[in-house]
């Protein structure tokens, strides 16, 4: 009745803005990780930009009471100490574990003034933080546990992180890896945990050292950490993106 045109200009503009906006926004900003020309990854980038732009970057994830701690499933890709686990078996790790990890040392390298190794005793001498937080798995489940460890920021500062640094990658003995940006790396709740619920990390929960990033989904939390690499450029440490997974998982 009111209209004479088949598709109105307004309709076209609405359709255009909503679809093109989502795609262009991510492509225009230099700070976003690469999109690999994949439409799904562009959506992930838009989420990354929006969450970095609209949310408080220092806000702490909710912390819980001791009586709210729940059971905690282990759903990773396998046990690095088990020779039967073809994907994840690591002979060095098996040796370390059989010695009770007393020879373990974390390697820190890349864009730092003092690359080197940190024995567990060295790490425990740096600042310590204990937090009861919720682990949120991409599968849909969640679990609450108490973690104690050294803030990643303390390790990075101790190693003399360079001004050019933009990403931190974590490599586990099990072949798994992840990277995070500096905002998450220096978030006060981002810690390298060595203690879970008051005792040394149980074997399958990432002994002797695992990452806790409380503002992202569970799969960022690399277990059995062997080395940390600080880089100036974006690194898709374990080919998350190639494997079809979102690199940023704040949602």
């Amino acid at each position, binding site marked *: 009745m009111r209209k004479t045109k088949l598709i109105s200009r307004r309709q076209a503009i609405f359709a255009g803005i909503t679809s093109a906006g989502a795609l262009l926004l991510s492509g225009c900003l230099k700070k976003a990780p690469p999109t690999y020309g994949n439409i799904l990854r562009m959506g992930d980038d838009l989420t990354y930009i929006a969450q970095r732009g609209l949310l408080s970057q220092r806000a702490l994830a909710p912390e819980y009471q001791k009586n709210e701690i729940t059971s905690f499933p282990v759903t990773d890709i396998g046990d690095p100490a088990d020779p039967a686990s073809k994907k994840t078996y690591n002979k060095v790790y098996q040796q370390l574990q059989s010695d009770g990890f007393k020879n373990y040392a974390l390697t820190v390298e890349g864009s730092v003034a003092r690359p080197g190794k940190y024995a567990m005793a060295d790490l425990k001498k740096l600042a310590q933080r204990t937090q009861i937080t919720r682990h949120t798995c991409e*599968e849909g*489940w969640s679990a609450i546990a108490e973690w104690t460890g050294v803030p990643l920021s303390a390790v990075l500062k101790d190693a003399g992180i360079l001004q050019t640094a933009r990403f931190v990658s974590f490599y586990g003995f099990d072949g798994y890896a992840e990277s995070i940006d500096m905002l998450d790396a220096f978030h006060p709740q981002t810690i390298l945990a060595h203690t879970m619920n008051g005792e040394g990390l149980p074997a399958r929960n990432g002994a002797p050292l695992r990452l806790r990033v409380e503002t992202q989904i569970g799969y960022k939390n690399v277990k059995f950490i062997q080395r940390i690499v600080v880089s100036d450029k974006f690194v898709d440490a374990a080919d998350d993106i190639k494997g079809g997974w979102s690199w940023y998982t704040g949602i």
Partner: protein
Amino acid sequence: MIVSQNPNAEAVSHRGWVKGSHFIITISFLVLTVSGYVILMSHPRLYWGKAGNDLTPALFELPISRNYHHNGWDKSISFKHLNGGQVTAARTYDIFNQNGWGRSTHFLAAWFLVITGIVYLLAGFITGHFRFNLSPRRGELRLKLLWRDFISHFRMQPHTPGKYGLLQRVTYISVIFFLFPVVILTGFTMSPAITASCPFLLKIFFGHQSARTIHFFAAILLLLFLVVHLVMIARSGFKKNIWKITFGR
């Protein structure tokens, strides 16, 4: 008079922006439904409260993938310093999990839904679409009137042609101002980054797993709405109505 179809009744005409946003939201909703189902398949258990997983009791479990009731768990290990019986155990079962594309598709479609939804809400208020076409008139919100309208739907008595009926308006208002906001906000509540900045979301939806369960039921209600919506369209002249909401004038 009882009529089985009313081909002569005039269908409601829609403005361009209503048609455009309706189109984008419909497509996004369908994509969200499919991807949401795929995501649910990798963990078809729902809980109430702050956290929940395979080692804690569920509200219910849906038989929608091979993950349903799987028992592939290594022996449980308890924690010395905890006295609530909490354990940890490793999974030995290869689960169904297509969340790589499932999650990214879900969030991409959610972006289209949220941005279009905001444009739709603004336009709806500015143009008076909500006030004139969707809100019930004064004194109309009475159970008796709603019931009469409900019954007349079964008797196939058409209401004033070219306008929305009372029940129709109440339903549309509930979907736009209640169901969609609930499904979007519970979606936000599952995000660790968003809840770090907006912890009140976890309060109003009773925790992470409660939000997930509410998200599920709100999506079910939206799907139910879609089915009834389509049935009503079919019964009042499918072709004519579909033409009117898409390309017709």
